[in-house]
């Protein structure tokens, strides 16, 4: 029951993210180079989330659990890497902007970079560890 609820809530959140993202793209008149990086990260995040939800639903339909101890451990490991990425991106995004574009990032952009980078590191490492075994 808990697994089903998690899958339903996850699907709902993914749908809302897709709609929000679509509205953002429709409202935007011009897409600059810096936007392309964040847009592609959002696309990767949404795609991987949908994949993970589909994977869970597939297992639930087959009468298997959506998550077991191996995947829980994969989640903990991925969370650790996501946390490290959040720390480094909070410093690195601003430093990178100064080095590459000779200007500091606004606070909001740093927050966005931290969320997007740690999110993508979490997703990629979670999929990697869940396909790797130990």
């Amino acid at each position: 029951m808990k697994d089903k609820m998690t899958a339903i809530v996850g699907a709902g959140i993914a749908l809302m993210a897709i709609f929000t993202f679509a509205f953002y793209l429709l409202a935007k008149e011009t897409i600059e180079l810096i936007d392309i990086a964040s847009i592609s990260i959002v696309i990767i995040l949404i795609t991987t989330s949908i994949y993970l939800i589909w994977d869970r639903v597939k297992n639930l339909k087959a009468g298997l659990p959506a998550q077991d101890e191996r995947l829980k451990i994969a989640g903990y490991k991925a969370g650790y890497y996501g946390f490290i990425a959040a720390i480094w991106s909070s410093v690195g995004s601003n430093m990178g902007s100064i080095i590459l574009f000779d200007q500091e990032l606004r606070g909001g952009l740093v927050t966005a970079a931290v969320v997007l980078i740690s999110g993508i590191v979490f997703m990629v490492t979670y999929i990697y560890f869940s396909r790797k075994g130990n």
Partner: protein
Amino acid sequence: MKTRIKEFRARYDLTQEDLARKIGVRRETIVFLEKGKYNPSLKLAYDVAKALKTTIDELFIFDD
């Protein structure tokens, strides 16, 4: 670590999915266990051994 899960599974004519359902884990976990690519917790090792009507030391062979 080597395991004899495949051998015991064949003895009871169980598929990986049947065993996974019996224990309450995902099929991929059984695949990784059989290949020796995943070190299970003591509880999971016990559950697998119980499902295959054997003991942990019969099922899992540790290399020194």
